[in-house]
């Protein structure tokens, strides 16, 4: 290996990794489904690129191996070699070899040689391809092809030739010159051909021409000629439309004149008839007569009193021009058309100053379409200056049935200038463009007030800074950018992590300051001081007022700083988002290897559905998924013989899928194996001392299944390479808990098991309700909180010995949070007669949690939690509030388990209050 620069090696590492990532999924999928030609070509290109990159930094061994793999794929691509299991195994082996040689080259700078047996095997397969069976390619549609009128171009050419021959002869059917019998024959010929080409519209109009009589014939002929012209335009073929037009010119011009005159006469008196006349006029103009544009403009003028006069004038000119057989005043006609168009467009175009303001703020005016006058007036108010600003409001859409009503309400309440659908992060949303004097925070709050169920609402001010929105110029729009590579910068993840860390700290300090300001007693003290000094030392009042003003200014500036820091913080969280595929793509190979080692045949499907998640989440999710998949192979999936004996397909299935639901993500691992044997799990739990026999008999099946996640638990009789040590599923539960999620199990004996991991999509930020015990601040994730209330101590009652409280006609069991979490008791500051209660729900269990004091709702950054803390029952994470206040974040399911465990026997079911 040469002394390649570190930058070159780094580039080599990145680019070869991308190719390797592309190769493996195709090869693994090929075991089940024959790849199509584009997939084979992609494989070939990837090996070819690796070869070229290796040559660049003189890794000859790697180049040799990639070259031999590429040669074999060349045979496959030429259909001289089938991509059978033997070839696939060889290519996978080559892939492993490439990985190893690449690693040695990058890390140690060593140019190692590939195994000669592998090279020989690849060569043998390449040489042996002559005469071999051809690979079956899956049919693939031609990429980028436009929807075509017909697949076979020759057929279209043939039909165009028929039109050239037959169209001019049809003029006689509408009063033109010619042979009527020939015309009837030609009409039949064209109808048969149009039917065969499934040009049903043209066929229909040809048929109607054949059936027509009287004045309608010329309009029917015009419809046929217009269709023929469109066919010619779409296919780029000559269809003889000009010749046909020449043959039918006299009746067509007469008809144009009559229709234009009638429309000019009736445009004001009979609006319904006017529409029909205008459409007829447009139909005649579509054959290609000169000055036909007036017809189209006339149709657009209907119903608009302001343009009636110029429209009538233009129509009269048109009628006169066609009546005089072309001896009119063409200049006058085009001037009339221009004038009509100008009058139509009054109030419908962007003025130059408005266009400039919009472009200065990062909007491509062309992408706004052609809005109506009301929208343009609304946009133009930005020119009035003052507090007005241009904002984009993005808000998630509710379920489909609720959308029409919500959209109408939003339109009426906020009167946006423009609206467009969007799907940021995969959630269907609407983006509203509006001019407003409200602050972005105030506007957001107004919208949330009008639409309380919104999953998210974002308000961005257009200030010339690029952000993702539908009207962004193409160069800065995330979508629609032609050269993706040109718009991307590769940044090492360490640098990003450092940046995120610092911004996170900055956000933490800003939050601390915000807490200080919100909790500050200064305004109240100043107020009381002012009251006191008013009578005792009034000369000091101006000084107090000065302090109050400064305090108020400080508070406002702090709020703005906190808002901006929060925006920066949110933006950096967005930068951390990566496709879930990155995690899912690790598993196909692992499953292939383990299943082969165990003699099992497993079809593995992974569907990430394009979901993107926080990078930190992928790191925490990878291990749980790996353990659960291994567990499924080891314990869930039967051997092929067992499956056949059970009348199940020999090929087992494991499906890994993810769906996003609002701001939550559900990942499922479903297998069609033997299911979990609850009795076996119970016996194992007893034998491993996790529970007593007597206690275990009281448990439901769902409770028994939870032992799977107990540390050290295993039902395996033997320890295998991959499983049976009782390590793994507990890690899965811990990591998922750290992500603020939970794991559910559904299992049917003999049919399979589904593990469902439900987690918040952005694990880093959580909205919480802050509360205090006597010694500790705690945070309840908002999703578990039903209600926070203060009730008199006398409201507490005992139901079968259990403390309970009556709320909304329902007795809720009541627990002290300090008792559930085993927190030390401190001195109570609450000497009053009231209790602070947080009503929470989880696992279909609703209960009250008594705290010392309820503080407020808060957006909190959940920090990385030490495993020891994560294992504490009822605790899901920690965070800090202000500079040094540690906050314990409650784990929804863990706390509920503790509450269930603490409930006094006899109150298993929550009693209803008497009506």
């Amino acid at each position, binding site marked *: 290996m040469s002394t390649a620069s570190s930058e070159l090696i780094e580039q080599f590492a990145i680019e070869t990794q991308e190719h390797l990532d592309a190769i493996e999924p195709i090869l693994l999928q090929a075991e089940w489904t024959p790849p199509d030609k584009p997939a084979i070509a992609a494989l070939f290109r990837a090996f070819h690129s690796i070869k070229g990159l290796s040559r660049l930094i003189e890794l000859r061994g790697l180049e040799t191996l990639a070259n031999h793999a590429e040669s074999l794929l060349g045979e496959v691509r030429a259909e001289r070699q089938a991509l059978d299991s033997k070839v696939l195994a060889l290519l996978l082996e080559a892939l492993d070899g490439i990985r190893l040689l690449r690693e040695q080259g990058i890390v140690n700078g060593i140019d190692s040689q590939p195994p000669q047996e592998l090279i020989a095997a690849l060569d043998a397969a390449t040489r042996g391809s002559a005469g071999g069976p051809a690979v079956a390619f899956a049919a693939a549609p031609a990429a980028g092809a*436009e*929807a075509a*009128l017909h697949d076979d171009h020759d057929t279209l050419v043939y039909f165009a030739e028929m039109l050239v021959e037959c169209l001019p002869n049809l003029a006689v059917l509408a009063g033109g010159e010619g042979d009527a019998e020939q015309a009837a024959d030609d009409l039949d010929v064209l109808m048969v051909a149009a039917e065969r080409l*499934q*040009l*049903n*519209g*043209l*066929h*229909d*109009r040809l048929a109607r021409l054949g059936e027509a009589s009287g004045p309608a014939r010329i309009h029917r002929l015009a419809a046929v000629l*217009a*269709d023929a012209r*469109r*066919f010619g*335009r*779409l296919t780029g073929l000559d269809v003889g439309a000009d010749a046909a037009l020449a043959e039918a010119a006299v009746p067509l011009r007469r008809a144009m004149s009559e229709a234009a005159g009638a429309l000019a006469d009736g445009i004001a008196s009979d609006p319904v008839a006017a*529409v029909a006349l205008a459409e007829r006029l*447009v139909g005649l103009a*579509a054959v290609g007569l000169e000055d036909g*544009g007036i017809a*189209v*403009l006339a*149709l*657009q*003028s209907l119903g608009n009193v302001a343009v009636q006069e110029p429209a009538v004038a233009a129509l009269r000119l048109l009628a006169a021009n066609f009546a005089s057989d072309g001896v009119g005043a063409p200049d006058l006609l085009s001037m009339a058309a221009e004038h*009509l*168009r*100008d009058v*139509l*467009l009054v109030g*419908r175009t962007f003025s130059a100053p408005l266009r400039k303001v919009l472009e200065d703020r990062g909007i491509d005016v062309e992408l*706004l*379409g*052609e*809005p*109506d006058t*009301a*929208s343009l007036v609304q946009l133009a108010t930005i020119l009035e200056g003052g507090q007005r600003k241009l904002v984009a409001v993005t808000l998630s*859409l509710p379920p*489909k*049935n609720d*959308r*029409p*009503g919500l*959209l*109408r309400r*939003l*339109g*009426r309440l906020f009167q*946006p*200038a*423009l*609206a*467009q*659908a969007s799907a940021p992060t995969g959630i*269907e949303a*609407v983006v509203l*463009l509006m001019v407003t004097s409200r602050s972005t925070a105030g506007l957001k709050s107004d919208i949330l007030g009008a639409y309380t169920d919104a999953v998210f609402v974002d308000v961005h001010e257009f200030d010339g800074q690029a952000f993702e929105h*539908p009207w962004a110029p193409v160069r800065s729009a995330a979508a629609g950018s032609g050269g993706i590579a040109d718009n991307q910068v590769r940044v090492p993840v360490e640098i990003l992590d450092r940046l995120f860390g610092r911004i996170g700290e900055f956000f933490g300090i800003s939050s601390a300051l915000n807490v200080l300001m919100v909790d500050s007693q200064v305004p109240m003290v100043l107020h009381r001081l002012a009251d006191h000094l008013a009578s005792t030392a009034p000369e000091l009042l101006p000084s107090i007022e000065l302090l109050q003003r400064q305090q108020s200014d400080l508070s406002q500036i702090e709020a703005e700083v906190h808002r901006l820091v929060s925006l920066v913080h949110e933006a950096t969280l967005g930068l951390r988002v990566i496709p879930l595929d990155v995690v899912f793509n690790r598993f196909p190979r692992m499953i292939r290897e383990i299943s082969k080692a165990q003699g099992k045949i497993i079809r593995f499907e992974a569907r990430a559905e394009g979901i993107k998640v926080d990078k930190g989440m992928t790191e925490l999710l990878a291990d749980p998924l790996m353990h659960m998949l291994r567990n499924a192979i080891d314990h869930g999936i039967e051997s092929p013989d067992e499956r056949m004996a059970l009348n199940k397909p020999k090929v087992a299935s494991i499906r890994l899928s993810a769906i996003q639901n609002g701001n939550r993500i559900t990942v499922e691992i479903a297998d069609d194996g033997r299911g979990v044997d609850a009795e076996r799990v119970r016996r194992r739990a007893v034998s491993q001392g996790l529970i007593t026999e007597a206690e275990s008999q009281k448990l439901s099946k769902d409770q028994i299944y939870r032992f799977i996640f107990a540390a050290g638990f295993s039902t395996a009789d033997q320890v295998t390479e991959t499983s049976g040590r009782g390590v793994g599923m507990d890690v899965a539960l811990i990591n998922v808990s750290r992500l603020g999620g939970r794991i559910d199990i559904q299992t049917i004996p003999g049919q399979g098991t589904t593990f469902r991991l439900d987690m918040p999509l952005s694990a880093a930020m959580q909205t919480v309700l802050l509360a205090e015990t006597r010694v500790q601040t705690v945070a309840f994730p908002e999703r578990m909180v039903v209600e926070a209330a203060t009730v008199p101590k006398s409201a507490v009652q005992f139901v079968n010995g259990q403390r309970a409280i009556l709320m909304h006609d329902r007795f809720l069991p009541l627990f002290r949070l300090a008792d559930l979490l085993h927190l030390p008791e401190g001195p109570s500051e609450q000497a009053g007669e009231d209790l602070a209660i947080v009503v929470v729900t989880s696992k279909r269990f609703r209960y009250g949690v008594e705290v010392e004091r309820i503080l407020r709702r808060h957006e909190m950054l959940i920090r990385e939690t030490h495993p020891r803390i994560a294992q504490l029952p009822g605790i899901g994470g920690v965070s800090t509030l202000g500079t040094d206040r540690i906050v314990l974040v409650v784990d929804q399911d863990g706390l509920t388990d503790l509450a269930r465990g603490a409930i006094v026997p006899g109150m298993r079911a929550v009693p209803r209050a008497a009506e």
Partner: protein
Amino acid sequence: MSPRLVLIGCEPVLHDLLAERLGEAFEIVGRASSADDALLVVRSTPADVVLLDTDLWKTDPAALVSKLALVGAAPVVALSSRAAPGGKGCDALLGAGARAVVAKGAGQLPLDLIEGVGEALVATLTRVISP
């Protein structure tokens, strides 16, 4: 019996809103969200009218209107955010064979489909169906 409508549009949110709004007055006999599917549906499904939302197509929507007019007998009505009277967009759609054009007015997603644009659409679709 309700008139039969084929609904074509590549923007899913509006596509669903239109289906729900127009489903009251029309029998929606076909839906398509790609040009290929649109030609297939219009070719193979007898209908009384075709409604095409012309926004967000990667190819020229006027060319799609022409194709739809050629392969199907039903009149094509275009719904567009680029259809200001007198504007080039409206000219192009009518010239391509659209029987009528309904302007969305304020962006690609009309907010009031219950009344506003919704009523205008129903009226236009009903009008072009009548002989």
